[in-house]
Every structure is written in C-alpha cells, then in structure tokens.
C-alpha cells in the first residue's frame, strides 16, 4: 500500500500543531535526523559517535516530530511501542555478550568477523556493533517512552 506523501494537516486534538513552519520543518527533519543517527551509530567506532549519541539524536528526532505533528504521529514513526524498543535493545546487548560464551570465553568478549564485499572492500563486523545497536535501541526506547507518555498525559 502506498502512503500519500504530503505534509499532514493539523491534528484537531493535539495542542501544539498550530504552527505551519514547525510542521513543515518537522516533516523534513525527521528522515534527516534519523539518517544522521544511523550515520553516527555506524561511524562511532572510529570517530565521535556511537550508539548512545545516535540514540539521543534519534530520540530528538522523534521528539521534534511529536511537537510538530502529534503523539499518535510519533508512535507511527516508531511503528512499535517504545517500551518494546528498550526490551529488544537489552536482548540484543545480552546476545552480543553471550556470543563469547559459545567459544568458552568470558561473557561480553568481543568477536569479530571480516567480510569482503565487492564494492565496500573489507568490512569488519563484530559483536560490539551488535552491542552498540542494543545501546542505541535502549536509549531511543527509554527517551521516547518517557517523552511520548508524558505528552499523552491529559491535564
């Protein structure tokens, strides 16, 4: 099913969606910020960035979207309940730790796999990346759980 790509009209129930400027920028900022978060996550091992920072950026993206559109809109961006995100993040981090146990090494020992890809050249995949992804998900999950649920509280 193709979704109509246009700036959504103001949500009648939401309090903070009256500004056209905010909605317009929010619409464009969301993908940019999320892409930036992904970029930060992947480069984190060699340059400033990493799962924690990327998670914070992604949470900020969700928050901007929430202010620009609505709480329901923010939930739609996440597609899953934000609570599930931090649960999965914890599971990923634990899995990354358990990997080491299979080869008889201590919990959380890093494991690396070097893959040669035709275009990208040599790519090092390791359990720390998995762990970092877990960190990312926990941060996004925590921040957006708090922000979305706070915003949904009707006074």
């Amino acid at each position: 099913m193709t979704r109509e790509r246009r700036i959504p009209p103001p949500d009648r129930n939401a309090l903070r969606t009256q500004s056209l400027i905010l909605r317009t920028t929010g619409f464009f900022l969301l993908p940019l910020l999320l892409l930036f978060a992904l970029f930060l996550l992947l480069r984190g091992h060699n340059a400033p960035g990493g799962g924690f920072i990327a998670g914070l950026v992604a949470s900020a993206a969700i928050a901007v979207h929430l202010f620009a559109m609505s709480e329901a809109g923010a939930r739609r961006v996440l597609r899953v309940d934000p609570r599930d995100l931090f649960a999965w993040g914890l599971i990923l981090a634990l899995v990354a730790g358990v990997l080491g146990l299979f080869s008889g090494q201590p919990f959380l020992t890093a494991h690396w796999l070097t893959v040669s890809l035709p275009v990208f050249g040599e790519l090092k995949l390791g359990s720390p990346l998995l762990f970092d992804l877990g960190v990312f998900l926990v941060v996004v999950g925590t921040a957006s759980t708090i922000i979305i649920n706070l915003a949904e509280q009707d006074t």
Partner: protein
Amino acid sequence: MLTGILSGFLLAPLAPALHRLFPRYSGWLLALLPAGLTLYFLQQWLPVTQQGPLLSHIDWVPALAMPLSFMLDGLSLLFALMICAIGALIFIYAGRYLEDHRDLPRLYVLLLCFMASMLGVVLSDNLIVLFVFWELTSITSYLLIGFNHEDANARAKALQGLIVTVGGGLALMTGFILLGQIGGSYELSVLITRGDTITAHPLYGLTLVLIVLGAFTKSAQFPFHFWLPNAMAAPTPVSAYLHSATMVKAGIYLLARLHPAMGGTELWLLLLGGAGAITMVLGVFLSLRATGIKRMLAYSTVMALGTLTMLIGLGTRTALLAAMSYLLAHSLYKGALFMVAGIIDHQTGRKDFLDTGGWARYLPVTSACAGLAAMSLAGVMPLFGFIAKEQLLEAGLNHGHALAPLFSAAIVVAATLGVAVAAVIGIRPWFGKPAALTHTPSEAPPAMLLGPALLAGLGLLLGLIPGLIDRSLLSAAASASLGERVTQPLALWHGINTALLISLGAVLVGLVLFRYWQGFRHATRWTDTLARFGPEQAYHRLMDGLVALSNSQTRLLQSGYLRYYLISTLLTLVALVIAALWLNPDALKLRPDFTDIQLHEAVIAAVLVIATLAAVTLQSRLGAVASLGAVGFSIALLYVLFSAPDLSITQVLVETLTVIMLVLVLFRLPGFLRLTRTRTRLADALVGITVGGMITVLLLSVLGSRYHGSIAHYFITESVPAGYGRNIVNVILVDFRALDTLGELFVLALAATGVYAMLKLRSKGDTTEPEETHD
C-alpha cells in the same frame, strides 16, 4: 543414583500435562516413579547390607571443591526405601483424595519436588549438597503446607513452619561449615571416620549446638515442636507424607548420620537425650489433650520424634538398633493412621474425635487398618511396634549413665500415655454409640485404602517375621549410625523380663486412662494456661517485634518526600567520606595548582557559577530551566576544550532532551509558590554547599594523588589492535568496559519502566483516563 534423585525434579514439570491426559488415573501413573525407585533401592539391598556403602562422585563445582557426591549405606537405604515406598502410596491416595480439587496438578508437582529433595538429603555425601537439598525440603514443604493458599490460616502456618525450619537451617549451615573445617573434609563418608579428631576439637561444642539446632527445628524438638501440629493446615496426604514419614525425620537422619562423627560425648547425650525426653513426654501429653484427629496424630508424631532423638542421644548399640526399629515402625503406623484420618474426613466430614463413633460397620476395612496401626502405636503384641517398644525400654533400662533412670522413667510415662492415645485412635471412631451423620458413610475407594492397608499389614508382617529385616536392613542402618558392625536379631518373644512387665503395665494403665479420657482432659485443663508462656508465644512475640521494628524504621526512612530522600542520601555520603578520611587522614592530598588557567577557562567557570546561582534563586521556572541549560552547555564547552568530543556531543544532546522533557512537565505544574520557609531553604543550601564542597575537595585530592599509573595509556595503545576502533571512548563503552555499559542499560530501562508505571498508575485514579493509544 543422581538420575534417581533428579528424576523427581524432571517429572515434576510434566505432571500437570499427565494429569490433563489421564485425569482419573494420574495418581496411579505418577506413583510409578516412586515405585520404580523403590524397586531400584530394593535391588541395592543385598549389595549394600552385605558389601558396604555404594559411593558415587560427580564433579560439580571443582573451583569450590564441591562435588555432587552420594553415598548409599544401610541408613540411607532405610530412609530412601521409606521415602519412595510411602511416596508411591501417597500419590495413589492423593489422586483420589483431592480428585475434585482444582489445584491437584500443583500438589503433584510439589510432592515430586519434595520427594526428590528428600532423597537428596538422605543420599548426599557432601555436606553442602546435603544442605542444599535440606533447604529444598523446607521450601517445598512451605508450599505444601500453604497448599490452600486462599486460606489465611494455612498461609500463616506455612510461614511459621518455614521460618522455624529455615531459621534452624541457617544455624545448620554455619555448623556444617565449622564441621567441614574441623573435620578437614566436607564428605560425610570421611567425617564419620574422624570422630575422635572432631570431638576433641575446641570448637566441637559450638559446632554441635549449631547442627543440633538445625536438626531440632526440622524434627520439631522442644522448644521448636509447635510448628508441626500447626503444619496440619496442609491437605491430609501431605501431612501423612511430610509430617509423619519423611520431612520431620530429616533431622533424625542427620543426627543418626553424624553420630559416629560427633556422638559419644557427654554434651551429645545431654543435648539430644534431654531434649528428646522432654519432647517425647510433652508430645504424648499434648497428644492426649488434643481432640482434633490430625492434631492428636501430629502431637504423637512429636512424641515419636522425641523418642528417636533421645535414643540417638543415648547412642548405645541397643539404643541405635531400637531407634532404627522405632523409626520404621513409626513410619508404617503413622502413615497409615494419617491416611485413615483423611478417609474419616473424606467419607464423613468429621475432623474431631469427639464427633466420631460407631463407624466400624460402615467403614470395615478402614477400621481394621486403623486398629492394626493403633496397636502398633500402642506397642501391642504381635505388631512390629511391640518389638520397637521392647527395644526402646531395654535401651533405657540397660544404659549405664547416671541419668539413665530419668530416661527410663520418661520412656515409661510416654509408653503409658501412648497406649491411651492409641486407644482413642483405634477405638473411639469405630465402636460405641454411632455419631449422628446426615448420611450413611460408605467405605473409601480402593485407591485410598491401598496405602493404610499395605502399611498396617506390613506392620503386622514384620512383627510376626522380624527376620525379614533385622539382620539385613535394620542392622546395616544401625551399623552405619553406630560406626561399627551390629548384627542383633530381633524377636517378638524375649521371655518374661522387666521390659515385658513394664509394657504390660503400660497397656493396662493406658486403657484405664482411655476409659477416663474426658476426665483426664478435664483434670489437666490448667496446663493450657502454661501455653501462654510457651515457645509458640515467643515465636509470635518475635514476629510482632520484627514487624514493629520494620514499621518504625520504614516510617523513619521512607518519608515519601523526594527532598528528604535526597538529603539523607547526600548526608550519608558525606558521613561515609568523613569517616573514611578520619580513619585515613593521610589520604587527603591537596596540592591545588591554579597557575596554568587560561582566561577563556576562567570565563566558562564564572558562567557556570553564575548560572548555578541563578537557577537556585530565580523565581520563575522557565528562568531556572534556562539557567540549568546554561550550566549544561558550559560543561559541554569544557569537554570540547579538554578534547572529549564524544562527551561534549552527549552532553549537548542530553541537555536538549532534558529541556524537551521539562517542557512537557512544566506547563502542568501549578504556579510558582514559595512553599518553604527561609530557614528550611538555608538548611538546604547548607546541605548543598557541604556536599558540593566535599566533592570538590575530593576531586582536587584525587588529582593530587596518584597511587597507580594511569590506565589511559592502556586504552590508547590497545584500542586499535584489540578493539578494532579508533574512537577510544566508544571502544571502552562497547568492548573494554561493556559490562558497565550493560549495567547502565538496565538502569536506563528500569528508569523508563518506572516513569511509565508512575504515569499510568497516576492516570488510573483519574476519572478522565486517557485510553492508551496503540497504532
């Protein structure tokens, strides 16, 4: 052997499914496991009784020198056989007795786990392994006593049993560790050969008292006897199994097992003999005062446990052989009697001896079983109980200790009152004027009769032909407990001797007592007032005291105000640091060096200070938030200056998100009010300044002192070769110190869950509850 013990635990999770498949025959099917185990142990009968103990050893935790080692000798064999054989009968019985109970599968699960733990206790060779199983029996029995968990009384009694036995278990663990240290081994098979070393050790007395505390609480010895009758809140099959035949005998097993290692001293004799004799007399007296069927049986179990403890305390060849005979006899008749009590309850609904009578014609088989078992309890010829009681009397009469006459007197009293108890059980419900019932009771179903009939019948068979077991099983068990070989044949008829005459006299006086039972109960009513000073009251006092203590400390510490929590946490921190510095005054090394401060650094520091002061003093919330933001961004700037870009980015992002969250909260808060008085605010300021000042001093001192070389160098050199990453901060986060990060992740998730719970709980109370929006 390990498979045998673990099979109960393995079958337990499958029991509910089995019950769903065959709801009517689940008891019979589950009984196959203990029956099979019984056969296995019967197979070991000849090898164990003739060739000696069977040992098995599996490494479990080699680093702690803790192997899963098991030993099957005569003593273990006797107990294991009782546990498995009576267990099989109990499963069959319970399947019918609780047929309509919604939670029958749960009972199966618990009973299987309990049986497996009990087997573990009597088969373990390693003290620590034994202790693990010991505690497992306490926990499973707690769940079994509280089986009717919707009944507050059952829950309270279950908790009482748990607290008493686990409290004793705590002492036992300490005792075991001491024993392992002074005996030089944690293996029972080694310890029982080192009796002389152990009893000569200066810590022997303490060790013995601690271990005996564990055994006494488990086996309901005075003054811990009160939990056992209260444990009758359990369903009757559980009482029959745990509180007569098995669990309470765990303490007896332990004492009998440790006799070669720790016995034979004056302390042993006085502790065990004394407590056992008191328990025995008290138990039989309270049993005769009781009228509830299960209560009377429970107190007579207390008597039997006292008798066994006393016999092990006496510790002679005759005494230990008597203990083994008495143990077996008691398990047989008490298991049967409890099942009979269950039948009476099941078929007639009566639970008190005063409401019973004349039912022999309706329940002929049950009454025959009850009669046989009661005769064994009374010690009447030709039941096995008679042989056991003869030996008991001889053990008392032939003992050489100066206090032996006292023990003998106690035995005679207990034997006499015991006959009266047996008469109440064996005669009262069955003969005389029929007690009025709304319906005519019918005989119990075969599944419920099998147990009492087999056990009572076995009591008769062994009485008639004691040669089946005397030279093999009982002798082997007594040998294991004595530490040297015993082969003493048992016989029903010893000729006319003192023991027989006393026995005869006891039966006569006991029957007279039964005739005037009500009169006896009336005449001894005054003893009820003594109970007010008894150990059960002490238990209640202790529990009430504990609750009061935790109440008062909760009121003190849990004020419910965030500011008080903060103040107490921070002041505790200050107190701890001051205490540490007090003990270690040289640790503080203040060599502040302010010479190379650049101008821009000083400016940022000034901004920090001004922003902080503004945040504290401003009268508007938005202003305070902005000032806090200024603090945060200044710190981020500091990170940039001291080349920590990652930290700086994180700080900026965290500040941003904090502002977002604050915005979401701020407009809900009521208008700014000055709620606290100036004095309170000054006190808060004092706390803040103290904590801040202390942290500053600490940080300066940390900078001034360097005990170890910096670990930064390691991270810098190892980051690329070991972590494959050039961003050291990230490599530390996800690789070198990943465990710390994992812990922090859990904290984050916990915080989110907490916030979520608080928000949702709050809206529960509101009438305008927003529906949770899902996509």
